[in-house]
């Protein structure tokens, strides 16, 4: 495997409402920031992650290219998934050996519509979507299957919001549990509606070291998926996260920090168990998705935040996790190390 590292990371100051910025206007500052951090103005490969249903417009990612300056023509790809999977595609592309750098970005404005019911549209159209099963309902069903202790959920929610208060990019949310929504979920168990974007630069081989004194080397990256239909799985655990974690080698060393794409308090409990993270691992010091959830960038931000700890010298080995699909159906795990 070719050494590939995260060498730059930027994200917007996420907002809980639509500021009126168009998608190219939203991503422009983060693209500019990672270009400045990396000193690169052009990249061997570019890949983005977004979802047309958030804006309700087909091929909305195409217009987002206006923020890049795609002329002369660039080598570009897109995933209709969280941009963490765009990073995976870029990592695979860099393994080919003919290009050394990649730009990865993701963006989403979930304030435009009703995210709760837009997420219904991802469900199987025969058995689940016709029931109107919405995002908070299937998440609450998983929380019910886990039977999580309310105290444990509250601790996760409170810690996430508290950490979010010291993260300038996160939403600053009250330390208040809020009302029950779909029980057992309360307001603070649920990732907030957020608009935002993030970008990462990957560099391979010698280029990584030339760009950054302390690149976050990707030592393992893997994703696994499990059956879609909720009744075919044991919702109390995540077999796919466990498999991805093993394939990425999470357990091969101590993990200082793990940024987990837990959009609901109970998902952190499930993921922590699946990845076998000990209590010594700091979880979501950024506040995590419960403090800022720019859908389609949230997973990439987990990788970026985990990489940033290494680039800052604050951590030696970190894990970035991303999830997609209902009830943690699809999980991607990235293990990063200094040097």
């Amino acid at each position: 495997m070719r050494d590939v590292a995260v060498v730059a990371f930027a994200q917007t100051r996420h907002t809980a409402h639509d500021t009126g910025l168009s998608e190219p206007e939203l991503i422009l500052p983060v693209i500019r920031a990672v270009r400045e951090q990396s000193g690169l103005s052009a990249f061997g490969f570019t890949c983005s992650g977004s979802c047309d249903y958030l804006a309700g417009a087909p091929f909305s990612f195409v217009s987002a290219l206006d923020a890049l300056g795609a002329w002369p023509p660039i080598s570009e790809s897109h995933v209709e998934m969280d941009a963490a999977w765009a990073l995976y595609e870029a990592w695979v592309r860099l393994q080919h050996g003919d290009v050394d750098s990649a730009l990865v970005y993701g963006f989403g404005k979930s304030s435009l519509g009703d995210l709760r019911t837009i997420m219904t549209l991802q469900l199987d159209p025969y058995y689940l979507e016709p029931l109107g099963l919405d995002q908070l309902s299937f998440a609450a069903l998983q929380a019910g299957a886990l039977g999580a202790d309310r105290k444990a959920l509250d601790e996760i929610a409170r810690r996430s919001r508290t950490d979010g208060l010291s993260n300038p990019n996160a939403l600053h949310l009250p330390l208040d549990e809020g009302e029950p929504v779909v029980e057992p979920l309360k307001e603070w168990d649920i990732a907030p509606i957020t608009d935002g974007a993030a970008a990462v630069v990957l560099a391979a081989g010698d280029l990584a070291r030339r760009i950054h004194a302390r690149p976050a080397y990707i030592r393992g990256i893997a994703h696994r998926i499990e059956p879609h239909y909720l009744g075919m799985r044991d919702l109390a655990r995540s077999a796919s996260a466990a498999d991805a974690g093993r394939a990425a080698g999470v357990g091969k060393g101590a993990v200082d920090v793990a940024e987990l794409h837990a959009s609901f308090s109970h998902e952190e409990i499930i993921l922590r168990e699946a990845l076998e993270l000990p209590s010594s691992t700091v979880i979501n010091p950024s506040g995590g998705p419960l403090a800022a959830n720019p859908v389609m960038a949230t997973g990439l931000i987990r990788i970026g935040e985990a990489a940033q700890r290494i680039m800052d010298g604050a951590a030696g080995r970190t894990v970035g996790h991303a999830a997609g699909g209902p009830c943690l159906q699809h999980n991607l795990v990235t293990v990063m190390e200094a040097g």
Partner: protein
Amino acid sequence: MPSEPGSDALTADHVLEFPGGYTRTTGPVIGRFLTELRDGRLMGVRTAEGRTLVPPLEYDPATGEPVTDEWVEVGPAGTVTASAWVREPLDGHPLDRPFAWALIRLDGADTSLVHAVDADNPKALPPGTRVRPVWRATRTGHISDISYFAPEVTKIVSPIRSAYRLTASPSLTRFLEGVRDGVFIGCRCGVCDKVYVPYRLSCPECGNPITEEVPLPDTGTITTFAINNLPDPRAPEVPFVSAYILLDGADIPMIALVGGIPAHEVRQGMRVRAAWVPEQERTLSMSNIKWFAPTGEPDVEL
């Protein structure tokens, strides 16, 4: 950077919709399931490994192998394995009143079906609850041919109401005459010297006829009490306190309401006095006494 939009920001509404709905083919497996559903039957399909998938899929999610063409009827009853409670249903939900989502393991199936359950409250559907489908009157071959599931019948409600007409006994009549006049009439046993209230005709301890009436004051001490949280037509508020009150000079406590004080402050040994309704409103009834209220005197050692 542009500033945040104010109230003068340009906005527009935008709807993404497939008018008339999006047409999908079902394939042979889902099509069979939906056709059976239209007939009011719940069917599962067997995998090569012998598991029964409900709802059926074309491929075994565990192995990726095509399922067999062996179909088995399942349910219609099933067991809830997990649930979530929707307090405020959305427009597209199966019920327009609070309800539960549940994973339901239909009898004979090895997987669980996701559907709505019409349950009374968030606690009404613990894992293990047995449920059955409630079918739509007109079925079309759609997962919503089951309107929702409902818990199996495990209890019924029996309204009971019997009417009686009571005539007060001579002793009770005598006691209530006292209450009408603002006095608690007790009695003393000529043999054991015990003072009873309310007034009675014989001593419950030695069985002797009683002849001596004893007027008792309307003050006393609480010996024990209970806080009631269920409404009662005889109590002026909820929660209310019913207490044993040992009237001064009596040997046996009398049961009465305690009021004029928060329920959690009532205690044993507390001194109380009857709160009478105005004289002109009094009748031959215990309702002449609103309740007993604290006198403010120091507590008594019992």
